Each structure stands twice: as C-alpha cells, then as structure tokens.
C-alpha cells in the first residue's frame, strides 16, 4: 500500500468519486469529485494529535461497529494517505459551531473548516474498474439472530477482531470481554441460497478454515465447529490447508445450520447459543451449544453497483456483478471498449485470482498504450450536406452530442470521433439527409424481407 503513495507515476485521489465520463476508447474525459477532508493534505504531518484530542466519537464503519472512531479520523492506523478526514455529521464544530479543538491544537495549521468540494478533470485512454464487493448483511435471516444475539458476528467482523490493529487489539472476545471457548463457524450464509444469492462466494470455505486456525493459535483450548455443505478447497495449497486443520482437531459437521437459539433445553445449554443443524452424515438433528457464532457471509455486489455500471456503460450479469465481455475468452474487458474490470466487482474471487485478473487488466491497458492508436468505428452516421435542410433536429437528439451545426453552411456536422453509430439521427432526419453506415435503410429493409420468407 505504501508503494502506491510513493510511486512517481501514480496520482492518488482518495475520498474522491468519479461523477461523469465522456469520450471514447483512447480519449476519455473524466470528472472526479474530491470530497472535502477539512484537512489540508499538503500541510498535515500525520502526527495524530487531532484524533487524540477530538471529543466526538461514533461507531467505526471500518470496524463494522466493533470499535469507535473520532469525528476527525483515519479509518485505520496504517491508512494511506495518513491524512485524517472530518465527518461533519459527528463533528461538534459542524453540528453546533462550537469546539474546534483540532484546529487549535494542530501545529501544522492543517485544519481547514472552509475547505470545499472540488471537481477535477482528467483525460485518460482507458479505465479499469475495481470497485470491489459488499459483505452481505445477515440481519434479514432472523433465524441466525444476527443483531439479536450479541455473540453472533460476521466473518468480516471476526477479521477485525482478529487483526492486531483492530478494535480488540487482536483478541477474540465475547461482548462481555470474556474469551469464547466453543465457537461455531457457519458456512454459506447467503451464498448458494436462492433466497439470497444463488452463486457460491468462493472465498468463505477458505476464510472459515483460516478462522479456525487463527482461533487455535489465540485460544489453544478452543473447541471449534465448522458447519459446511461442501468444502470447496480448489486453489493451490488449499486442500493441504484443510488437511492441516483436520489434524489441528477442528470439528467438521456436514450440514448447514438451520437456526441459532438461546432457548436452552438442558443445563449444558444454559447461557449458550445453540446451533441447530442436521449432521447429514449420521442423519441426526444436532444441537451444539457454543459461546460465539461466526457467520461466513456471502460476497455481494456493491449496493451502488447499478449506478456505477451506468456511469461506466458496463453491463451486469444476473447475479448483479459487472459483466465481462466473455466469461472464458475475455474475462477482463467489458462490452465498452477501453473499459476493463478486475477483482470482486466482476464476481467473488480470492486474493490470488484478484491479483491475477488485475495484472491481466493492466497488461491489456499497457498493450493498448504501446500500440499508440485505437481503431474507431467506421459504421457511423454521415450527413449529405446537399440534402440537409438545417432543421437541427439531429443536433438536439444525438445522445453523444456528436452533432453540431455549421452556421456558415447552415448544415449539421458530425464529429466522427464522438459518433457511436447508434443511428438515432438517421431515423429522425426529416429530409433523409443522414445515412447510418452499415445500418442503412436499404440493408435493414432487405433483412426484414429476408427474415420473413
């Protein structure tokens, strides 16, 4: 991560969003909205005093509510860039006009409450979209009690807990601060499930196994249960990892949990969470009392995937992820020339696959840059100046603003680089002056005739 910040060829724009794209392959114009951090990045030294002294706290999004952050914050200690932002909804200065502690205490004078949003414009030849995934929120699956039982957590929350720089300093603990001794990890929560996502999220088996291993390391006497449907350990070194865990004494139960309850039916179950599942290999319904349950939740498309897809003119597959041009032959390109996808925005995948796909996208881009030119569509519209009556209908109707009006000649003119050949102008032109090349009226009429034999 640090190498990104220091790289001379990378201009990093964090806390920023693409808002508009125009142009075409080889020549895109992109507008990027830079949200105000209220901290001048050129002055900030990253000393952290502001964060220490800020009196306003809220739940940390980055830690999925497990920890807290200040109103002026960096999401995590190793953040790049190491420049905090102010959350105006929590900040006392922004909500009531008082406080301003950070401004008073900042020696570098970097706090700037007056900072405004900026829009930058850049020109690029190609675009790689790597907007990632969301982790499914299991609140709707009330049978698992997420949100109702304190010690039912999601996989990504477990990651934060387990992370040495996370909210618990790497300690696995229950809500009351005590150490869990029996833990169940439930696979396929929201994956392989027609009620949520039909697809397999591909990473859950392995991260669930990893959790078992980390638990063993941190709580040596922990009793761990993995409730799975199928273990899909397909990657290089993955099956071996599974075998290792079997030796470490993890309990594997082949069955998906049906529900979690806190209603005890025996003294052993008092005060525990009871996971109810069928052990399908022995054909018994089984109640397993545990202290903590980890839900291995599905990876799903970002909540705003639809807007992003529209912004970049890319399609989405049935599962909602961005659609590659061809699943086997062109897995990084999209149907829009010059726009590529990589990582989990295209579908759930693990780190090795993500890195591979990102490298592939980079290679495609570098090859295009090397070639130096891009072929542009020849099948575009042309205007017969002699027939054009200058009504300007086409100018207003063109969705790509590729048509302008030549006031001198009193005729419409098409910018060949901008025209995408949609043919809307040709269909609309009242004087029949526009021809849509390769989709001429003659050709389409002939096709209709041929089709109706």
């Amino acid at each position, binding site marked *: 991560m640090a190498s990104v910040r220091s*790289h001379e060829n990378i201009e990093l724009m964090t806390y920023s969003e693409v808002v508009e794209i125009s142009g075409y392959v080889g020549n895109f114009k992109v507008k990027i909205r830079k949200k105000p951090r209220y901290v001048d990045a050129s002055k900030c030294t990253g000393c952290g005093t502001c964060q220490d002294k800020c009196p306003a706290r809220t739940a940390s999004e980055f830690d999925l509510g497990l920890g807290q952050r200040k109103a002026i914050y960096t999401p995590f200690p190793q953040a790049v860039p190491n420049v905090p932002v102010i959350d105006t909804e929590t900040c006392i200065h922004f909500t009531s006009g008082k406080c301003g502690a950070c401004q008073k205490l900042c020696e570098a004078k970097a706090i700037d409450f007056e900072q405004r949003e900026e829009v930058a414009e850049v020109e690029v030849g190609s675009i790689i979209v790597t907007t990632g995934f969301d982790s499914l929120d299991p609140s709707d699956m009330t049978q698992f009690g997420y949100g109702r039982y304190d010690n039912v957590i999601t996989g990504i929350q477990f990651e934060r807990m387990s992370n040495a720089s996370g909210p618990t300093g790497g300690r696995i603990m229950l809500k009351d601060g005590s150490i869990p001794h029996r833990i169940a990890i439930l696979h396929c929560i929201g994956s392989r499930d027609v009620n949520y996502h039909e697809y397999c999220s591909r990473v859950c088996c392995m991260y669930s196994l990893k959790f078992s291993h980390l638990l063993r390391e941190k709580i040596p006497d922990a009793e761990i249960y993995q409730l799975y449907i199928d273990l899909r350990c397909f990657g290089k070194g993955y099956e071996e990892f599974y075998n290792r865990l079997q030796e470490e004494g993890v309990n594997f139960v082949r069955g998906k949990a049906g529900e979690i309850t806190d209603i005890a039916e025996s003294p052993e179950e008092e005060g525990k969470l009871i996971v109810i599942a069928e052990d399908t290999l022995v054909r018994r319904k089984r109640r397993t009392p545990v202290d903590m349950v980890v839900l291995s939740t599905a990876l799903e498309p970002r909540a705003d995937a639809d807007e992003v897809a529209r912004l970049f003119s890319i399609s989405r597959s049935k599962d909602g992820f961005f659609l590659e041009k061809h699943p086997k032959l062109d897995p990084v390109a999209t149907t829009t020339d010059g726009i590529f996808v990589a990582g989990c925005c295209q579908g759930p995948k693990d780190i090795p696959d993500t890195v591979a796909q990102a490298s592939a996208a980079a290679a495609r881009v570098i090859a295009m840059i090397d070639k130096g030119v891009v072929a542009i*569509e020849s099948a575009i519209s042309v205007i017969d100046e002699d027939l054009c009556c200058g009504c300007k209908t086409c100018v207003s109707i063109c969705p790509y603003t590729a048509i302008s009006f030549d006031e001198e000649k009193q005729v419409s003119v098409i910018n060949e680089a901008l025209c995408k050949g949609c043919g809307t102008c040709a269909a609309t032109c009242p004087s029949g002056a526009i021809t849509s090349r390769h989709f001429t009226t003659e050709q389409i009429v002939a096709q209709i005739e041929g089709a109706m034999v």
Partner: protein
Amino acid sequence: MERKIGVYVCHCGANIAGTVDVEQVVEFARSLPSVVVARDYKFMCSDPGQELIKNDIREYGLNRIVVASCSPRLHEPTFRRVLASADLNPYFLEMANIREQCSWVIEDREAATEKAKAMVSAAVRRVFHHDALEKKEAPMNPCTLVVGAGIAGIQAALEIADSGKRVYLVEREPSIGGNMARLDKTFPTLDCSA
C-alpha cells in the same frame, strides 16, 4: 458489380448441430439468389474454418460473406479479420446468430432449423447491400484511470505505473486498501494482507 455470396454454417460442435439440421440450412442457402457457395464446418472460428473461407474467397471470387454461427457480439471481429486477410473489405460480412438466438433457445429441431434458415436468408439479403467502409484510427491517450483502490486497483495501478505510464487512482474512502485492509492474515500462506 455482381454479388458473389458465400454462406458458412458452423456446427459449433454440437452446440448448433445438435439442434439445427445444419446440412438442410446449407442446402437452403445454396438456393438463395447470388449465393455462389455454401458450406458447413465443425468450428468455423477455428484455423481450418477460417482457411476454408479465405480459400473460397480466392477461388470463387466471393465478395460478400455470411457466417451463420454464434453472436456477432462474440466473433464478428474474428471473421472481419478473415475477410481483411483475404483482401476483402471487412464490412462485407454479415453474421446470422444461430446459436445464442436459435439453437440454444429452441428445443424442437424442426422449429430451430426453420428459424436458422430464416436468419440465413435475412443475412444473405442484407449482405447484398453492404458497402465497403474504411478503417479509422484515433490517438491513444497513454494515461489510465483506475477506479477503486482495493487489492485489484492497487495491483493494476502499480503494474501500469511500473511500466512508466501515468495512472490516476481514485478511491471513494479516505484511505486506500478496500476490504483487504480489514483482513488479518490471508490463506493459505497466512502472511499479512497489507
């Protein structure tokens, strides 16, 4: 100029031939006006398939080509290159999509074959009117935009930047790292994720 049309019907293994009576379609194509030659082949997009078309263009002096196979969204560029390599304008091609929109969506063999015939007939009529179009080029801007700075974005940005090209890396959150930054050790090597 007299139109000499060649029609090439692909089996796509059993993908098309399993549902569409390919030979019947070829027979039908031969009966269409201006069609000089019509053939079928196992995989039209394969090297021998492409050779077949090239040879016919030379031998019969074909000047319009219809390929009845998969979606033009998939292989139109492939077959356009075939025409170009046989010195024919690549726009003298029309494809009939008898796989995605015919053999894969219809179960009844007779109905599928009838639809394939109609699609070939439409393509033949259409290609008759095709004009030569010239290829155009535009300059390629050497800068790249990468949207999202998780593992994928960081990896792609670094590789492009390492090759000496400029990259704009845009991230919505205050820090780069994405979901990856949340993770502890990652399998199977259990090394740190940052």
